[in-house]
């Protein structure tokens, strides 16, 4: 067996495993976001009939008859429910309209011609028919548009949703702001810390490195729980500040942005320190003395020698922290208030709370794309491995 074939066979199990259980689920999430199939599946005859309706005139009799036939058909309850949910998200009112119409057409005899407008006057309103038509294509951009607070109007133009419902853009913006704030905080602490660790030696350096590695090895949940305890109103930090007389009443440090930033900075700081340290440790020891010998003031030497050499580490650390921070869910969910939740929590709400996988998938795509792009950039720029042991 050739060496190349053997190598391929060794990799194959992982390729199959990740293909099946990593790439395929991601693909399914993306395709669920653009699939408009639920309404089409529940109303197949209507789907065909509505294609030839131009949307300006009242719906013709064959179209109405097709809808009646679809409503009479033995559609599984779950499929019907999915379709109603999708339609209702397009046009409020379908949630009551469709079950009521379905009941009425089933009660009427097979031979009777049902006039939908007499069952419910809403069928006289073109908006409902247009929503039905809009929901029919096999693929739809409705979820993707809704994820950025846009929608298609009745004449298929893209327009912003009512300001009451426009929350997604604000949450996305907030996610990026929190991730950027955490990255800046990590850089502000991480750069001097890595410089300190690189400038000392022996047990001091070991102690500083262990201080970075211990939290990295500790469970994320344990660390978040610890911050909950430390930052409470009568937690250790408020107690200490009160004991030394700095404050009279407790600072509110938790269930707000402060808590989120403190906990996330703590969780992600090691990811900043280690790449910077790795790039600093590669700098020849005599470079700074050489700069000094050539007459550079310490600040000058720092700016022109050390900082440029530390830059690759700082850049990959920042990319890593920002990328990981974007997708955070646990820490903001536990330490933040309602106004500090990030995009992940909205996705989790859609997926587990309302079973609206289309929306969860669309928002997930808006999180997946920036993360993947940042990862590609990180891979290009950095030789620091993602895992430190």
């Amino acid at each position: 067996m050739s060496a190349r074939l053997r190598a391929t066979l060794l990799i194959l199990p992982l390729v199959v495993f990740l293909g099946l259980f990593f790439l395929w689920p991601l693909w399914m999430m993306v395709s669920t976001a653009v699939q408009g199939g639920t309404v089409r599946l529940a109303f197949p005859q209507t789907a065909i009939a509505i294609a030839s309706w131009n949307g300006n005139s009242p719906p013709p009799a064959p179209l109405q008859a097709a809808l009646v036939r679809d409503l009479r058909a033995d559609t599984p309850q779950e499929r019907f429910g999915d379709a109603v949910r999708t339609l209702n998200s397009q046009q409020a009112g379908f949630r009551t309209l469709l079950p009521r119409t379905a009941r009425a057409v089933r009660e009427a005899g097979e031979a009777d011609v049902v006039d939908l407008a007499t069952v419910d006057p809403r069928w006289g309103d073109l908006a409902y028919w247009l929503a039905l038509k809009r929901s029919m294509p096999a693929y739809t951009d409705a979820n993707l548009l809704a994820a950025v607070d846009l929608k298609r109007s009745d004449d298929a133009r893209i327009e912003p949703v009512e300001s009451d419902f426009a929350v997604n853009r604000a949450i996305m913006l907030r996610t990026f702001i929190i991730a950027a704030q955490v990255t800046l905080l990590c850089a502000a602490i991480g750069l001097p810390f890595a410089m300190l660790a690189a400038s000392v030696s022996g047990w001091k350096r070991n102690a500083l490195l262990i201080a970075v590695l211990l939290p990295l090895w500790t469970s994320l949940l344990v660390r978040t729980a610890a911050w909950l305890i430390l930052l409470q109103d009568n937690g250790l930090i408020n107690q200490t500040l009160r004991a030394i007389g700095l404050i009279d009443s407790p600072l509110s440090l938790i269930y707000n942005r402060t808590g989120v930033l403190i906990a996330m900075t703590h969780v992600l700081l090691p990811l900043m320190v280690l790449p910077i340290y790795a790039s600093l440790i590669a700098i020849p020891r005599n470079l700074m003395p050489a700069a000094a010998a050539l007459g550079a003031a310490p600040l000058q030497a720092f700016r022109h020698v050390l900082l440029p050499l530390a830059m690759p580490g700082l850049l990959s650390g920042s990319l890593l922290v920002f990328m990981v921070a974007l997708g955070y869910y646990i820490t903001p969910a536990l330490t933040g208030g309602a106004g500090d939740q990030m995009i992940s929590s909205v996705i989790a709400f859609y997926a587990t709370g309302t079973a609206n996988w289309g929306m969860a998938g669309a928002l997930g795509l808006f999180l997946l794309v920036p993360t993947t792009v940042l990862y590609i950039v990180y891979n290009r720029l950095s030789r620091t491995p993602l895992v430190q042991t």
Partner: protein
Amino acid sequence: MSGASIRPGGVAFNTLRLAFGALAVAFLLLPLVAILPLAFTDSVFLVYPITGPSTRWFGALAQSQAWTRAIVNSLIIGTGATVVATVVGTLAALGLRRELVPFSGLLRSVFLLPMVVPAVVLGVGMQILYARMGLASSYLGVIIAHAVLCVPFVLVNVASSLASIDPALERAAASLGASPVKVFRSVTLPLAMPGILTGAVFAFATSLDEVVITLFVAGPNQTTLARQMFSSLRENISPAIAAAAFIIMILTFVLLLAVKGASLYQALRKRQRIEIS
């Protein structure tokens, strides 16, 4: 000149450095140090000062069916995920070793992707996939989902220990007449073992700590220790959480120390062997 002491080596500069170092280390370690003693409080509140030592909260955990079940689940799922991830990860690391396969670099990047993709995104996808495959709310489903996240840790650790093996050793064994299988079993595998073990421990620790994907794919019967901790942190903070945190920390550190100890022991033995010969 007062500015002179701000220069590196100056008194003020050194004081500043010391203060910053101490503060930063305190920030990094305070949470880990602060939560452990609270596991042994006898109060019903998670606050300092501790009124008296007691193991009542460990007792409370042991008596609560939800917590004991969660601990058992974590061990089952962690073991399963570790086995799956270690086997496929180690094989792949061996396959990627000499970069014989086209696009080795690209493959490696894709294999590490599970570490970067937001857990919520993967969770949504897995939930949809599992609903169709009938894996939802099953142990197998949770084990597979965790294994996906654990694979990169195995891959990175095994790859780095393979990279540190001197190819001359394998060539020497082969030139002395050992078959490829024999070379692998008596030279490559023992030398790679510390990396495989470290990878396995990181895999287990990752599974132990995973919450988000578990929220999406696990049913009530597969609640893990971490997920149980997450939901109790949302409801009411009691010292039982500190006790659970204590258990998680001890589990992780014992495992890590075991691996570090094992690789140290192996290094010592290797040196002994060289000295004897």
